[in-house]
């Protein structure tokens, strides 16, 4: 038997068991007991609020991490400075550390009693923990690496000759960035944004620790899924999961549409 066929079978089989089967299960279970419970959960104000919280956190985290990722990439590839290796390593920290641990770190920092920043903030009337700011912070933290990690290899490959050429042609720093660098790395940025978005929408661990998970207030879509499961509303849990899975699939589709275009650019 041709070895390549065997390899392909293993790869596909793995994907089916690990990825597609659970995903298919979610789709199947959601509609098992008809559309009624699905609609009921999705139109529940608490569910809608949970999605809103997730989307707000994502809408804040994605642009911030996109700007940070591009700036970080430029600094790491183009500049020489002390602590560059450290910065490069720190970017990957959120991937290496479990989100639950990240949540705990945020908890320790922002706890209103005894937290390093939390105590001071509480005295001045700011509540971070168990409120929107903590959810946003946790979401930003876990989605830091993606844009930078996409942009860095592309910038390395690009080199800086084109920018030098632009400089000799009269382009100032910002014009060089806008007209040469950014268009050259645009697909890496878009790809990074897609991954960051996916990561933000799916964040559970850190948010679960710091959000307080108050129904209709600080619950996010993912924590809502768990809540519904715990209250034996399995159909509801499946429905919310289905929405999250659908978004993930759409993101995947967006990525496959983007990728081949990149080769021709």
């Amino acid at each position, binding site marked *: 038997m041709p070895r390549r066929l065997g390899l392909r079978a293993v790869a596909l089989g793995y994907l089916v068991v690990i990825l597609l089967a659970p995903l298919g299960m979610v789709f199947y279970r959601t509609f098992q007991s008809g559309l009624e419970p699905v609609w009921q959960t999705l139109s529940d104000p608490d569910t809608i609020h949970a999605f809103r919280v997730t989307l707000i956190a994502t809408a804040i985290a994605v642009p911030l991490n996109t700007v940070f990722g591009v700036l970080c990439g430029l600094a790491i590839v183009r500049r020489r400075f002390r602590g560059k290796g450290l910065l490069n390593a720190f970017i990957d920290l959120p991937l290496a550390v479990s989100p639950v641990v990240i949540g705990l770190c945020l908890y320790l920092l922002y706890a209103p009693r005894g937290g390093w920043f939390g105590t001071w903030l509480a005295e001045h009337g700011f509540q971070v923990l168990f409120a929107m700011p903590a959810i946003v912070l946790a979401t930003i933290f876990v989605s830091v690496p993606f844009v930078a990690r996409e942009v860095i290899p592309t910038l390395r490959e690009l080199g800086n000759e084109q920018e030098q*050429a*632009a400089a000799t042609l*009269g382009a100032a720093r910002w014009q060089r960035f806008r007209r040469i660098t950014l268009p050259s790395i645009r697909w890496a940025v878009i790809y990074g944004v897609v991954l960051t978005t996916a990561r933000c929408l799916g964040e559970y661990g850190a948010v679960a620790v710091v959000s307080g998970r108050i129904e209709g207030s600080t619950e996010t879509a993912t924590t809502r899924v768990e809540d519904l499961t715990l209250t034996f509303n399995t159909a509801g849990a499946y429905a919310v999961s289905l929405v999250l899975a659908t978004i993930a699939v759409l993101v995947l589709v967006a990525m496959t549409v983007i990728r081949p275009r990149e080769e021709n650019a």
Partner: protein
Amino acid sequence: MSIEVRNVTKRFGSFTALDNVSLEIADGSLTAVLGPSGSGKSTLLRIVAGLERPDAGEVLLSGVDATRLAPQRRNVGFVFQHYAAFKHLTVRDNVAFALTIRKRPKQEVRERVDELLELVQLSGFADRYPSKLSGGQRQRMALARALAAKPRVLLLDEPFGALDARVRAELRDWLRRLHEEVHVTTVFVTHDQEEAMEVADRVAVFDHGRLEQVGAPAELYDTPASEFVLRFVGDAVHLGPRLVRPHEIVLRRWPSDGAVEVEIERIAVLGADARVDLAEGGGERLTARLRREELEDLELTRGEIVWASAEASARDAEAGQALH
């Protein structure tokens, strides 16, 4: 515009790329900066363009100090060895870049780009992307792009280095003709002495970050200021203790003052010239270049012993001629 480099030194870590270099380049001239790799020639060009900053010394453009001026304010055209084409822009937008940055009216940009594309013979390629061009076409595009904003100086860093021999020869000719047409002060860096001699009015020879000699091609060839220049510009061979040009060697059948006894190893006729491979008594080999008539008059054959000497007059006879 004239260029003046005064006492420029540039170090990269412990490596000295340029060591107290001073050079003047006249307005409207076509100058070659020649040297082996690592001689500092590209660094000099990049300092003139503002892409590198010297550790010491000054750069004057039209007599005005430009040492600390940003590259975008110098109005120089720069052509890179590997083209530095803007890959995401069409040929037209590449060439138009300097004008777009300067916010010139669209109609004017269009006319100027068309004119330049004509000049570099790329008129039919305006809407292509650089990835669809050959190396030679890319470099012509880069040249048109560099000329678009009518720079005061055109700087070319090994512009033909990445191209194959035939395209190189073509572009050399073409650069020469372009310079006659456009008359912009042009400096190009090369490690190819033939290219430097063929294209430039003046050649500056660099070695280990130092300027060895500046002069017209014939001057460098006939009166090299150092052994390095003698070796680097044109061929040179050892005859006894002296370093001479192969065509300066005269062969005789009798000994004379300073002549070295040599055995003829091989004779190759190359058109009007002939190459004679010789071996000295000590086993060292050298090559002489003789005219065909000379060779025939001497009736030399392989294995014969003759006396070789180098005559200064041979230099004068060939003065001003290209090599070979």
